[in-house]
């Protein structure tokens, strides 16, 4: 095992710890604002994992779309839906039941993934961005166009839902 592989694995574990910690804080804190900021930290750490898994373009997309778009959208929705409240809080219901069920589901998925014999690392490609661009404008062109239509439809739907009716 070379030194760069060692560093990659170390970084993978470090990003994983940040991601798991951020996710845990996001679901466990009662403050909605802190929950959304922790989600931003979690998403950034996941972008780091994407980079280490040889998905450079996806890492950039993750930061642009998730951290720059969805987290900011959530912050705006929070501010608009908690007018007059300085620090919006949310209750956590039935924590014991939720912990038990999520433990069972997580243990089941973990058991399945750890007992399956997975190859450690594939060949990969030298230029992932090049290959992804060729796939998007080649074999996957129809799905690429379809996602554009879906995005447009969702934007129009969101506008229609929040529009105030004139009387």
């Amino acid at each position: 095992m070379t030194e760069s592989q060692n560093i990659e694995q170390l970084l993978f574990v470090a990003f994983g710890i940040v991601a798991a910690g951020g996710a845990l804080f996001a679901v466990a804190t009662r403050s909605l604002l802190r929950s959304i900021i922790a989600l931003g930290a979690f998403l950034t750490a996941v972008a780091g994992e994407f980079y280490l898994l040889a998905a450079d373009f996806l890492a950039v997309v993750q930061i642009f779309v998730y951290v720059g778009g969805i987290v900011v959208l959530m912050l705006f929705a929070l501010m608009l839906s908690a007018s007059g409240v300085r620090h919006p809080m949310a209750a956590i219901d039935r924590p014991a039941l939720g912990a038990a069920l999520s433990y069972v589901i997580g243990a089941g998925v973990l058991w399945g993934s750890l007992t399956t014999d997975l190859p450690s690392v594939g060949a990969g490609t030298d230029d992932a961005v090049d290959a992804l661009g060729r796939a998007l404008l080649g074999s996957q062109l129809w799905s690429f166009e379809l996602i554009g239509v879906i995005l447009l439809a969702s934007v129009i739907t969101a506008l229609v839902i929040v529009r105030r009716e004139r009387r």
Partner: protein
Amino acid sequence: MTTAAVTLSSVLFAIGVFGVLTRRNAISLLVSVEIMMNAAIINLVAFSRLYEPEAMTGQVFALFGIGIAACEAAIGLALVLAVYRRFGSTDVDTIDLLKG
């Protein structure tokens, strides 16, 4: 590295399930769903390296997953605002007009 990615993904998915089960606020529910969705996308990216890396199927799937998540967040937050205007709260337990 694949085993590590799959392990991380299972842990994150379980955390997301915990959030969905215990939260009542609509925005918190969306946060938890995004965590579960990212856990799934990590799997797609990890397996993209193993099988047919030239075809980029896994990464294309992941890209579309991120796109769908953006649509979901836009419509979900629009619904949150609409519900807040009508009910004055984003707590999903207060939306009980159809309750028998």
